[in-house]
């Protein structure tokens, strides 16, 4: 039959099933097909902390959402247009997120009374009429898969496991995705097990053919490629981009990378990835605990390596004392915190950005360090390189705050030209820097560079520069132990001044305000960039003016931040915490910012945020009309 082809500009699909159903793989393959087709895209995997929760139950549901479009998009989307549910639990767990009129495709095979009961359904929703608001397509996907692959002689169970590829084939037809990337992938992945390989490829093709021939689907959709800047692209997750950024920081600085790490969700993939890159001189040390991980990294840094430790919030808590030692010894050290829901063990596989205070203040005494946060999965690359630059140049631990959404989410990444990337100069000390009373040359480890306030980095093996550093307070200059009150006061202030000075070495904050007349600013940091950007677009599309700015550097802040804040009548600060950036902004600039705070373990929803922005703009405009003209400094900043 001939089918109608309907053009749409974007679509959000969510694949959901049991943890063992291969939904992450299905979503990942659909994403790769979409990327190679040339759409812009953004993905959101969502899976339980349990590796295999009891089959068919709500806690065992795993899902993968992909949003793709013919234009640039910023988020994985609030609400799916299409839900693929492989069992009753997957339907029930995801139904609340689906908009009315959305398409639901279910594998009816698993809608048995036993599974319905497990998922908490009293009656079969496919028969009860409770899904009347949706376009429901129920097929026996498992049965059709088993039938399609029966000639390979697999057990019924093994045959049924290819049902995810059947579903993928069906969706690939529906959205006109190229099929070669997936067949190539399956042939590579299962090269050693021909039966499984052939069954998966066959199931995938059978799913495609079913989509094409079934009378249930009358429309095939077309989402044209997006317009993107010229260049070579690949789809990349945040953890992969971060690992590549760390390798790039090592290559650009000429410092061998040493990663000391202890496995923890959602950071472990950075350890896995870096362990593959020994040919770049990367050493990965899986330590006995979080403390040893950062300790070994700091020891390696003392020896002249680019020392890195990767973890999540609970790991940072354990590493705090060693990070403080790094602050005191003023050695380069990269501390990567892939934040997750907390406190304590919290929500290991869900996202949150509530470690900002821990990063700022989570050490004993005055122990300032630079903090930097990527805004999207691909941005993790550049931010990792920037973190390495700051750590090496200023001889300081740097905290990089990624999060669970950035770690596992993905988007197209324009691959940078390596030859155009700036070098990072370690500028090791090689000569004595001081003359003693008797006129002899000696080395003072705490004699600072006047511009950066960084101390010299003299590594073991350098003759004549033998010196001792440690956690005890050191005298300015010669660096011997000092308990002198004035010296301590000076050193505390100097360590703070050194970090603050980095503000002169980073770009000023840029504000995006197409209208040029916005009176409300939305200011965010980290992974909320996508939802904030999408929300601002929605608001602007309704003719409401709003300005947006996003902080990459959380400590020190860009030097124009105070001016920017004071230029607006109201500032909204959306965060996946209870107002940590808000607290810092209020304390630092005495600006009464308005928080928008959600800690659901998921990215902010753009539509809800757009409502909040609109409300604030209306409230601000209303009050403004009764009071005064915009202030003068507001005009100058724009």
């Amino acid at each position, binding site marked *: 039959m001939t089918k109608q082809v309907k053009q749409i500009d974007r679509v959000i699909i969510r694949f959901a099933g049991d943890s063992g159903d291969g939904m992450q793989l299905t979503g990942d393959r659909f994403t*790769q097909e979409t*990327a*190679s087709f040339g759409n812009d895209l953004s993905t959101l995997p969502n899976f339980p902390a349990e590796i295999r929760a009891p089959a068919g139950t709500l806690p065992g549901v795993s899902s993968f959402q992909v949003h793709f479009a013919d234009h640039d998009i910023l988020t994985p989307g609030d609400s799916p247009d299409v839900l693929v549910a492989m069992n009753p639990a997957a339907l029930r767990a995801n139904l609340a997120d689906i908009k009315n009129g959305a398409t639901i495709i279910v594998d009816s095979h698993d809608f048995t009374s036993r599974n319905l009961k497990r998922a908490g359904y009293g009656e079969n929703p496919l028969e009860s009429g409770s899904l009347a608001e949706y376009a429901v397509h129920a097929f026996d996907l498992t049965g059709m898969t088993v039938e399609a692959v029966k000639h390979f002689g697999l057990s019924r169970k093994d045959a049924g496991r290819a049902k995810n590829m059947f579903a993928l084939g069906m969706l690939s037809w529906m959205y006109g995705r190229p099929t070669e*990337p997936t067949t190539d992938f399956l042939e590579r992945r299962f090269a050693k097990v021909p039966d499984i390989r052939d069954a998966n490829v066959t199931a995938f093709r059978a799913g495609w053919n079913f989509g094409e021939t079934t009378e249930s689907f009358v429309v095939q959709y077309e989402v044209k490629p997006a317009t*993107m*800047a*010229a*260049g*070579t*692209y*690949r789809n990349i997750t945040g953890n992969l981009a971060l690992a*590549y950024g760390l*390798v*790039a920081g090592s*290559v650009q600085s000429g410092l*061998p990378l*040493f990663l*000391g790490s202890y496995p923890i969700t959602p950071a472990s993939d950075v350890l896995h990835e870096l362990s593959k*890159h*020994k*040919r*770049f*001189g990367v*050493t990965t*040390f899986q*330590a*006995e605990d979080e*403390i*040893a991980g950062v*300790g*070994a990294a*700091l*020891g*390696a*840094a*003392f*020896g*002249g*390596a680019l*020392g890195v430790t990767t973890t999540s919030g609970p790991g940072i808590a354990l590493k705090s*004392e*060693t990070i403080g*030692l790094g602050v005191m*010894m003023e050695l380069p050290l990269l501390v990567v915190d892939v934040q997750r829901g907390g406190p304590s063990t919290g929500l290991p596989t869900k996202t949150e950005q509530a470690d900002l205070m821990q990063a700022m203040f989570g050490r004993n005494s005055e122990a300032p360090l630079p903090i930097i946060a990527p805004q999207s999965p691909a941005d993790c690359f550049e931010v990792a390189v920037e973190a390495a630059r700051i750590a090496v140049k200023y001889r300081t631990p740097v905290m990089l705050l990624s999060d669970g959404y950035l770690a596992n989410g993905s988007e197209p990444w324009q*691959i*940078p030209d*390596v030859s155009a990337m700036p070098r990072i100069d370690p500028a090791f000390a090689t000569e004595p820097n001081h003359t003693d009373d008797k006129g002899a040359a000696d080395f003072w480890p705490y004699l600072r560079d006047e511009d950066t306030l960084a101390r010299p980095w003299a590594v*073991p*093996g350098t*003759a*004549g*520069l*033998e*010196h*001792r*550093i*440690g*956690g*005890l307070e050191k005298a300015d200059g010669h660096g011997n*132990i000092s308990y002198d009150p004035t010296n301590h006061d000076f050193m505390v202030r100097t360590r703070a001044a050194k970090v603050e000075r980095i503000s002169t070495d980073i770009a000023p904050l840029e504000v995006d305000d197409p209208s040029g007349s916005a009176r409300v600013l939305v200011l965010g940091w980290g992974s909320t960039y996508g939802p904030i950007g999408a929300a601002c677009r929605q608001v602007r599309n309704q003719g409401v003016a709003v300005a947006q700015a996003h902080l990459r550097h959380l400590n020190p802040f860009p030097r124009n931040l105070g001016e920017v804040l004071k230029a607006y009548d109201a500032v909204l600060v959306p965060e996946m915490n209870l107002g940590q950036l808000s607290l810092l902004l209020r304390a630092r600039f005495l600006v009464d910012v308005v928080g928008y705070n959600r800690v659901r373990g998921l990215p902010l929803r753009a539509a809800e945020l757009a409502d909040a922005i609109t409300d604030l703009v209306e409230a601000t405009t209303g009050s403004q009309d009764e009071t005064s003209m915009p202030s003068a400094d507001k005009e100058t900043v724009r």
Partner: protein
Amino acid sequence: MTQTELPFPGLPNGLSGVPTADAPQNRKEFASDQEVRWCPGCGDYAVLAAVQGFLPDLGLKRENIVFVSGIGCAARFPYYLDTYGMHSIHGRAPAIATGLATTRGDLSVWVVTGDGDALSIGGNHLIHALRRNVNMTILLFNNRIYGLTKGQYSPTSELGKVTKSTPMGSLDNPFNPISLALGAEGTFIARTIDSDRKHLTSVLSAAAAHRGTSLVEIYQNCPIFNDGAFDAVKDPETKQDAIIPLVHGEPIRFGAPDEGGRGSRGVLRDPGTGELRIVDVAADGSTDGVPADALLVHDAHADDPATAFALSRLTNAGHLNQAPIGIFRQVEQSTYDDLARDQIATARGEADDVGNALSGLLHGGDTWTVV
């Protein structure tokens, strides 16, 4: 006591890869300009003097030697040596030294720690350093007390120890550091005494020459908070009965010497149970006692640490009046840091342009081009 004979079997040298000095060095070159600030009479002075005296003999470039310490009285050690040094945080020195030793095969890495630092707060790092066998030498100053925090009991204090924090006596059983290290399958495990410079130096030389993690427990007297804890092994009157000297290849004998100058007591392994017993040794020609040729011959190179463990148990857990001294175990085993560097060398293969390689890495996977 007499100097123990130190075996140097065919192990790869622990110092190979570390550049050697161009000219002979002396003790003064290894002393920093910092005033030493331990309490008068502290055993740490003797160890420092022995180390400063022995380092020049290694013949290494001074700038390629690094001392890393944790927290405690002994942890001030690096400040007094004119080498590279780091006075780190409580218990973590073995972890920090692991990162340094793994990335820098050209360094001679030393860890200075104490019974609280190594066995209490840093116990985890100590056992894992031993298990990994990273090429470094750990000096464990054991004074069986907390000194820097002014006199609380430590994880090696005897049960019932009355201290500031345990006025009615401590309630926890002490660790035997040698037993613990053997349990972690350390490859070089020895014990020596702060006041016996000759033995201390010979053990340190063997420890430095060993490739892998060497653990040297040093009995060290704290004259302020635990004075006399090791009197039995130091007092000329008692030490011949208190010290059980371990010399590889020699029968284990101690006690008042017989006419031939050999100890009148010895260690016997029960052939039935494998247990070790202390027995009187029959004088030549006498049947009164155990014949000398039945005594246990110390084998530091035995692959199985079981006998070394049994020897470590001859140490008193309570008040010390008997302890084996010397090298309990020295075996050859691959080291973590050598293997880690080998993996990188293998992965690197023929030297290539890392810039090109990086570009290749970033372009890996499925890519597409927009023109």
